[in-house]
């Protein structure tokens, strides 16, 4: 199909075609996310619920407003944010294997959560996993604290390490250290707490309440908005730091802003949804395969839309009737995503030079 399209559409038209295609797809998936589930709610009832009609069936109204809508919005924010983070990291490190978790931020979040779930449970004698809403909130706070700690460290180091490759290695090492600490904590913890930690680690879009949304939404929007302002440095960074410097870009400032933007997105999303693997790594590759461009003016809106579509689709699959409750989101993203990425790479013509 790609060849067919390329024959009839110019580069610019192709871009517009795919962008609008992804937008329509995302919108459709959003509506499907509200309609489909263990209970199927007709389209008109969904509209009624959204419009605030109080005369409709109460249980349907609650399902749409309290469960499905925040879940779908969370999926949208997480999908868009992680995809943009992944794209930025792949460009900054000029490495196709980079993702938003490459800086060790997710591991930092994991460590924070482990400390709260495993240590607090031991000290207080209560497994935090039983505490319901307070539990959720403290987990999110702990994750954010851990992620911010690692992010601050990475930002500090990035000022002293001239070389991006070294920064990458430091990020990975920080990740290992955090995982090791988590391992020790797990070893000495109660079964219920470890289980709660495992559940957090599998990721979920359904734990974000409206009050939490008031944090998640503005932060992620800010991060996405900020990424548009980094288009120029990102484009030049593709050539490497020396060329970028020679083209008048302030390297250390740009690098700081790129890391800050990705860090903010990743830290916040991981805090609320758990470490969602794969989206950040795979969506940029899928998008580059479709759009065939290296220009971030196109790539950033494109990965945002593609991230939204993939996240909504994964959420839909996770909630399919028959899967009792909901499948862990990580299982779905990776299971659908991995084969798709392999397919894209095998079909791509640039097998010889992976590049960015």
């Amino acid at each position, binding site marked *: 199909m790609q060849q067919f399209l390329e024959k009839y559409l110019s580069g610019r038209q192709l871009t517009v075609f795919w962008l609008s295609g992804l937008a329509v797809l995302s919108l459709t998936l959003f509506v499907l996310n509200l309609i489909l589930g263990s209970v199927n709610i007709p389209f008109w009832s969904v509209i009624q619920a959204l419009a605030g009609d109080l005369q409709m069936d109460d249980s349907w109204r609650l399902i749409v407003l309290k469960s499905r809508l925040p879940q779908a919005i969370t999926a949208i924010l997480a999908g868009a944010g992680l995809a943009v983070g992944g794209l930025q990291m792949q460009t900054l490190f000029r490495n196709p294997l980079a993702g938003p978790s490459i800086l060790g931020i997710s591991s930092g979040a994991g460590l924070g959560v482990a400390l709260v779930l495993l240590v607090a449970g031991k000290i207080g004698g209560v497994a935090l996993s039983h505490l319901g809403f307070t539990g959720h909130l403290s987990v999110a706070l702990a994750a954010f604290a851990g992620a911010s700690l690692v992010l601050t460290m990475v930002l500090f180091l990035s000022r002293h390490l001239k070389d991006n490759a070294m920064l990458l290695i430091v990020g990975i090492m920080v990740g290992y250290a955090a995982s090791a600490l988590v391992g020790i904590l797990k070893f000495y913890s109660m079964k219920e707490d470890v289980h709660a930690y495992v559940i957090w680690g599998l990721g979920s879009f359904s734990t974000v309440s409206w009050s939490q949304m008031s944090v998640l939404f503005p932060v992620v929007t800010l991060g996405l908005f900020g990424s548009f*302002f980094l288009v120029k440095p990102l484009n030049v960074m593709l050539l490497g730091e020396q060329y970028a*410097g*020679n*083209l*008048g870009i*302030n390297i250390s400032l740009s690098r700081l802003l790129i890391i800050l933007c990705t860090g903010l997105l990743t830290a916040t999303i991981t805090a609320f949804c758990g470490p969602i693997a794969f989206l950040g790594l795979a969506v940029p590759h899928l998008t580059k395969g479709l759009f065939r*461009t290296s220009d971030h003016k196109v790539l950033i809106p494109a990965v945002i839309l593609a991230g939204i579509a993939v996240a909504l689709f994964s959420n839909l699959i996770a909630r399919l009737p028959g899967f009792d409750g909901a499948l862990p989101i990580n299982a779905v993203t990776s299971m659908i995503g991995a084969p798709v990425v392999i397919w894209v790479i095998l079909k791509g013509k640039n097998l*010889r030079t992976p*590049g960015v």
Partner: protein
Amino acid sequence: MQEEKKSLIETRDLSIGYHHPRHGQKVLHSNICVKLEAGEFACVLGPNGSGKSTLLQTLCGFLPRLSGEVCIAGKQIDKVSNRQLSLLASVVLTERVTVSNMTVFDLVSLGRTPYTGFFGRLKSRDLELVTEAIQSVGLEGFEERLITNMSDGERQKAMIAKALVQETPLIVLDEPTAFLDLPSRIEIMHLLRKLAHQHNKAILLSTHDLDLALQMADKVWLLAEGRKMETGTPEDLVLTNEFRRFFEREGILFDNDTGQFTVEKQKVKTIRIVGKGIEYKWVSRALARRGFAASDEPFSGFQVEVKSDGKREYLLTGPDGKIQKLRTIEDLLTQLEHEEATLLTE
């Protein structure tokens, strides 16, 4: 109009090298005083590890200088911002740039970065310049080609076009011909020379292609470890024996006559070669490789007569006066070897 020629690079007592965290400074060269003017095409030559890259990187501000002064277009390099510098000097580096999905046009347009606005959108003037630059490096028709699908030489031309659209009076290239085959090397050097002269740009590059640099450069800068840097017109440097001093090692000779390197052979045997023209030259070379020094004196040893009019023929006369007619140099060498061997056994 006294200042018609502007110095684009000028250094005073410059020291280059590295800051090492534990061992302090490592100075590679000191007291460098060089000048490069608009319209000049200069080559930095020197063996591996002589500090060519360090010098170039210091001159374009990638590495801090250790002491002294560097002025680019009359401005001290550490007093101008990154942005101002991007309007004065553009670079092409050795490393291969491989970015998937990037077309030649995308790559060259990145050279307009210092001139574009916040989002890097190209205006019609930028587009014109990009198209023009792609044409002037001879890549028209390649605009939509992906740079990952191009040969090293073509990609290097695209990088040069990128440097051109940056519209800087100075272009610095660090071994731009390193990965290229011989024809591409000549092409790139020729292109750069043309650009320097036509666009009145100062172009400075480092290279290992001595003979090309000798033929094309207006100025040559010679670098070697532990030696003072020498600069000048290549011919002067040959005549003052600087090339010899910088590059000769055991077994390798620099021939001041031809401007080429020769591998030192033990030329103990002499042979008389009679003839003229190009055939004479190549026969002498082939015989030199076998250890025969050419001599014009008549003597009793071997003698080769080169017939270059009409039919190419080589007449080999042995010490016994026997004459052999041979068609190719290869046959001549085989026959010569054979006769030498029989002479020894007798």
